[in-house]
């Protein structure tokens, strides 16, 4: 019976964005994406379990917009990013980029698609090769993919660098000669040089100082306006995400628990986890009365997540249902998705109630059998 619940749950998430990839406005469509990392035993290398890093995530990013992805560390934010780029393989689900399934591309097609999808990494200190001058760091891929004819190559690199706030004479320098903010500009220039449609920003400002952070965020926004870029902005800093994103997804332990437009989400969070997360943001005003919802304990291990709703161990509004059934990711309000039993329809509640009863009975029977 338990299996059936999971199936219905899965069916819900798969149906959610049906045919969304056929709409040309949607640049990236992710449907029920799963990524499990197997845990191998030292003995015979048998798989003894799975770390469920991403466990059924669906969302849509429209062209020219920015989606923010927030959550605690270890909740699978970066894994989603890397799976969309096909830097690591998926376990299940589909990712569409420009209407094409990323995981069905052949090696050759993938190579042609690569310039369109670029990434900016978190740490500008370790993501630049210390032995290559900046001009070459930015230009290497441009030459490789023949983005511009040979004779325009030099001019093109200069133009890209200027767009990112770097000067032409920086070309011959090496990364160690630059400060953190400047290095992040180099990373942005490297991504931008391939004329991409979509840039994945994996915590691009968390290693930088506040005043430099503002420079980089402004730069990203200006470039978006100028080139019509689409971003997936991964960060754990909620204030930065609110500033830069059009839509925001909140993740908890491999699941997307809430997804909505930024204004809606910040003015009226629905999920208890989102509420707790927002109440914990430090506000730079000493008179501000902190009304913190302190979450007890820490995030459970993704190798052995709690049954039912994964958040029920720390949730304030935990109900009986939450312990047995995983909540469905439903559209509570138009364009506002949330996965929580608080917002179930009465019919669904009745359905889940039955499932829960049966599960309870099965458990009791199992216990009795053991005795």
């Amino acid at each position, binding site marked *: 019976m338990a299996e059936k619940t999971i199936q219905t749950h899965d069916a819900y998430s798969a149906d959610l964005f049906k045919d969304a990839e056929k709409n040309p406005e949607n640049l990236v469509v992710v449907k029920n994406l799963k990524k499990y990392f197997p845990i191998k035993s030292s003995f015979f290398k048998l798989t003894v379990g799975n770390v469920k890093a991403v466990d059924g995530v669906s969302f849509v990013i429209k062209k020219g917009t920015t989606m923010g992805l927030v959550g*605690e*560390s270890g909740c699978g934010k970066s894994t989603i990013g890397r799976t969309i780029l096909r830097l690591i393989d998926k376990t299940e689900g589909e990712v569409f980029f420009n209407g094409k399934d990323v995981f069905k591309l052949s090696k050759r097609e993938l190579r042609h698609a690569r310039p369109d999808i670029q990434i900016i990494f978190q740490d500008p200190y370790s993501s630049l090769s210390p032995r290559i001058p900046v001009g070459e760091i930015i230009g290497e891929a441009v030459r490789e993919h023949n983005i511009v004819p040979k004779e325009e190559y030099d001019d093109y690199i200069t133009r890209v660098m200027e767009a990112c706030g770097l*000067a*032409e*004479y920086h070309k011959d320098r090496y990364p160690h000669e630059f*400060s953190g*903010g400047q290095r992040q500009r180099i990373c942005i220039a490297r991504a931008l040089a391939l004329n991409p449609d979509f840039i994945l920003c994996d915590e691009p400002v968390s290693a930088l*100082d*506040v*005043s*430099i*952070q*503002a*420079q980089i*965020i*402004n730069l990203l*926004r200006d470039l978006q306006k100028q080139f019509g870029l689409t971003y997936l902005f991964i960060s*754990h800093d*909620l*204030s*930065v995400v*609110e*500033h830069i994103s059009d839509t925001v997804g909140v993740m908890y332990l491999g699941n997307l628990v809430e997804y909505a437009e930024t204004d809606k989400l*910040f003015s009226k969070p629905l999920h208890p986890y989102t509420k*707790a*997360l*927002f*109440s*914990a*943001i*430090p*506000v*730079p*005003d*000493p*008179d*501000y009365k*902190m009304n*913190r919802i*302190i*979450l007890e304990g*820490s*995030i459970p291990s993704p190798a052995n997540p709690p049954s039912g709703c994964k958040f029920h161990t720390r949730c304030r509004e935990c109900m009986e249902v939450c312990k047995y059934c995983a909540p469905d990711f439903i559209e509570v309000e138009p364009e506002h998705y949330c996965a929580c039993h608080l917002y179930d329809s009465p019919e669904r509640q009745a359905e889940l109630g039955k499932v829960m009863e049966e599960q309870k009975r099965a458990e009791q029977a199992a216990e009795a059998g053991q005795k």
Partner: protein
Amino acid sequence: MSDKEELKKTSVGEPEEKENKKKKTSYISAKDSRRITKFNRKITKKLERDREQAGRNPAAYTTKMRDPNNVVEFDNMCTYFFSDVGTVKAVDGISFDVPKCSTVGVVGESGCGKSVTSLSLMQLLQRPAGQTVGGEIRLNMGDGTALNIVNTPIDKMQELRGNYISMIFQEPMTALNPVFRIGRQVNEVIELHNPDMTEEEVKARTLEMLELVGIANKEGVYQMYPHELSGGMRQRVCIAIALACRPGLIIADEPTTALDVTIQAQILDLLQNLKDKINSSIMLITHDLGVVAGMADYVVVMYAGRVIEKGTADDIFHHPAHPYTIGLMKSKPVVGKKVDELYNIPGSVPNPVDMPNYCYFRDRCEMHCEHCSGKYPPEIRISDTHVVSCYRYYETGEILGYPKTVDVEELLKPKNQEGEGMNNG
């Protein structure tokens, strides 16, 4: 038209000039390099000898507090690093107090000298390259006397660390030793400072401390290794170690930077509660203005090795006076406040080896006036608790004095004579 062309030419020519200038400053010839190394050897030797001499004589490092209600007073403290590229003035004449039972937040960008300040207070600087060359750090001993940390000898320092001052580090992952159990690491601190305690007493104390920092499963955690704990739990253990001997001052060096928002809220709450429980002060070092606003009673804003503004939290957050503080507030996005474009402070921090002799912030400042090209601005009191270093308040405020800096070249000469004089005497 010709004007425009000229303009274009100059604007094209400028970067090249800049580049040449930059190359000149960052380039060190072999001769210069030898000179610097020789000088560094000479001066560090001299400073170490002076320190040893002062350490032998308790009168040389015992002083009196200016105000007995302070735990620690920094008085024109200068900490320099004698590096291969020249003398880095990491902290250059800072003065501020930490009052009893209060939280002082120290804010600034990375590289502004926040951490060096705290390391100087603990005498944990990498000697001989890093030296506190001038000024005083006075630590209240509670019996009317005070110690000048700058000259205190190492064995005396060891009594102070843990008992009077202790520190919580930024990375709980690296601050704990991965090969020892948690229990042993907390025990170690208690045993070291209370040699006459029996093993059972020490263990009881350790468990008590673990409970105090909110670890529910204290017996289990006592037996665990650090890798078995999450980041938040590790930071709790670090706090337990820091508080084990009930120090009067806790230095928290970016205690929540490596943690998530929800865990950060837990840890900050815990620190605030513990501070009241054991009646100590906290020196909270951070770059997050939000954290400071929620925790601190007093705030010190540092920029390029100097204190540019200090006052109560209310002063700093509601009436920021220094252009840098104002810029810092504006450049941080705040949840619930929509702005189209974030303000950004143009330019970057000046090179610490070669600081200008005018206000360090002038070149990035949008409000600078002709005064600013003169001497470095003095500390100016603009209200009872609010002190700022900016010429914009030169006419209206009460001038307290200029930060005292140490000329390293001078340091070598007169101190030599002094040393000889003492030897003769």
